[in-house]
């Protein structure tokens, strides 16, 4: 006798009805105005916003974030108490301040300095000590308005905040590698840097990649916060602007959902291949991946979007 699953059939029936209702809504409700949406969601300013403000920003912020994050993680695990302290302070600050607030702060940092200059610190004060007035020992400088454009300010805010999250992810990854691995590498005569690069980090990657994928997806979505810098060459800003100008708000919001769904799906494919690459040598990868998925669902992107809220 085959096993019967009446519950499953009931569930299928319920879902079928719900799906039919949803399709009915999409087709019959005029507020969607699909024709308008399709006509407008590919306009040049929107595509430019998508490429620069969303894609380029995500890639740049993640590159800087991962790099700085690895450095902070290594500092955090160092024997040197000063490095450990600095790393802790960094992580504490950038995880405590919401991304939205951080972006507003970086967007307005030009209020503090009209020029950003590099040279001897406290030069005027030192000059005063030796009786020289207005001593300026500066090598080069930029006007804040030139260097801290909306894009740069937004990039700085997103990248520095990302580095704090990545530092914690990388630290967890490094700590997940068995101590025997470091000992074996040291016993062979590898230096600390070689041990980290060749033995520890490649193994830590298996733990680091899945939450980093989540972070990248969260970053992609958080680029919509650039509105608060403000950065106008950005996907959601542009879609929103079209909606407000034409009083066709809802189609443009649906377009935003579709664009973000599309971009996120591409990232998911990339994540799959990265995980497969770094799972090398782990025969039970399937089980391990299941376990990892469970872990990241609780830690990775979850804490992040929780802090930022409107992402």
């Amino acid at each position, binding site marked *: 006798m085959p096993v019967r699953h009446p519950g499953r059939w009931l569930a299928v029936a319920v879902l079928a009805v719900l799906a039919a209702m949803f399709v009915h809504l999409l087709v019959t409700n005029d507020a969607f105005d699909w024709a308008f949406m399709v006509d407008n969601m590919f306009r040049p300013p929107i595509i430019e916003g998508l490429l620069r403000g969303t894609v380029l920003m995500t890639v740049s912020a993640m590159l800087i974030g991962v790099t700085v994050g690895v450095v902070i993680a290594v500092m955090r695990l160092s024997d040197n108490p000063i490095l450990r302290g600095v790393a802790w302070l960094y992580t504490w600050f950038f995880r405590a301040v919401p991304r939205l607030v951080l972006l507003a702060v970086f967007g307005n940092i030009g209020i503090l300095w009209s020029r950003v200059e590099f040279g001897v610190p406290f030069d005027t004060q030192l000059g005063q000590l030796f009786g020289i007035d207005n001593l300026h020992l500066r090598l080069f400088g930029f006007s804040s308005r030139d260097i801290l454009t909306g894009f740069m300010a937004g990039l700085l805010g997103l990248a520095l905040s990302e580095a704090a999250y990545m530092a914690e992810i990388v630290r967890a990854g490094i700590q997940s590698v068995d101590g*025997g691995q470091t*000992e074996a590498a040291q*016993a062979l*005569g590898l230096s600390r840097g*070689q041990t980290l690069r*060749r033995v520890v980090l490649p193994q830590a990657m298996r733990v680091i990649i899945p939450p980093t994928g989540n972070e990248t997806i969260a970053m992609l979505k958080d680029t919509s916060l650039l509105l608060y810098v403000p950065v106008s060459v950005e996907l959601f800003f542009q879609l929103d602007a079209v909606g407000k100008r034409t009083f066709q708000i809802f189609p443009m919001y649906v377009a935003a959902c579709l664009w973000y769904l599309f971009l996120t799906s591409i990232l998911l494919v990339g994540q799959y291949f990265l995980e497969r690459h770094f799972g*090398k*040598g*782990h025969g039970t990868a399937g089980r391990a991946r299941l376990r990892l998925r469970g872990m990241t669902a609780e830690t990775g992107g979850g804490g992040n979007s929780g802090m930022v809220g409107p992402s």
Partner: protein
Amino acid sequence: MTELIVPAQTGAPAAESGLMVRAEQVHKAFGPLEVLKGIDLEVRAGEVCCLLGPSGSGKSTFLRCINHLEKINAGRIWVDGDLIGYRERGGKLHELREKEVAAQRRSIGMVFQRFNLFPHMTALQNVIEAPVLLGRDRKASARERGAALLERVGLGDKLGAYPGQLSGGQQQRVAIARALAMQPKLMLFDEPTSALDPELVGEVLDVMKDLARDGMTMIVVTHEIGFAREVGDSLVFMDGGVVVESGAPREVIANPRHDRTKAFLAKVL
């Protein structure tokens, strides 16, 4: 940098006397716990020295001091005439820099109880990683030598296998090949068969016997009395952080002089 103040050097640690390892009053404590309470040991070049003793006797810790995986609190260890981990200047010991310690370790191979193979690399990659990375060998010739080493430990057909696809005994043999790839003067074995299923112990011991026959200097922490008796040139019995007795393995195993040695041997034989 930690500095130890020690009495002026006594006796020559000279390599020409045929000594590969010489330890003098080695002390090691983990916090308040004193693990080694003044270990003296001499191992001649080409000799196989077996360290025996109950768990917690400090034998593994002592082994790890020989390649400076543990820093000693007092005393000295020389390997082939080189003071390990420190430089002596004006009666004071200065800790060597990380790079110098790493250089010293290159001539000392170590095999761990839990293999510690690099799981993300194949058997062959495990073996050639250090020689290639440290510029000892070009990749092509390292691969050739690595394959020959794996052949020697009976794994010529497992070059491309990842550690996770190998049995414990096979993994430990890869680990031995990995250590040998650096062409060490001395091999340290830290309970190399303790994590193995009983039927896999033999294959690892066979490789070690083969090494001993080839004249490799070896210090082996082990519970394999049979191996110690058959292959060992000297046996050192440790308990409570001190050397209780030492001598020719057959002698010590057949006629232990000390009560603690007797009690231990009665349990393991």
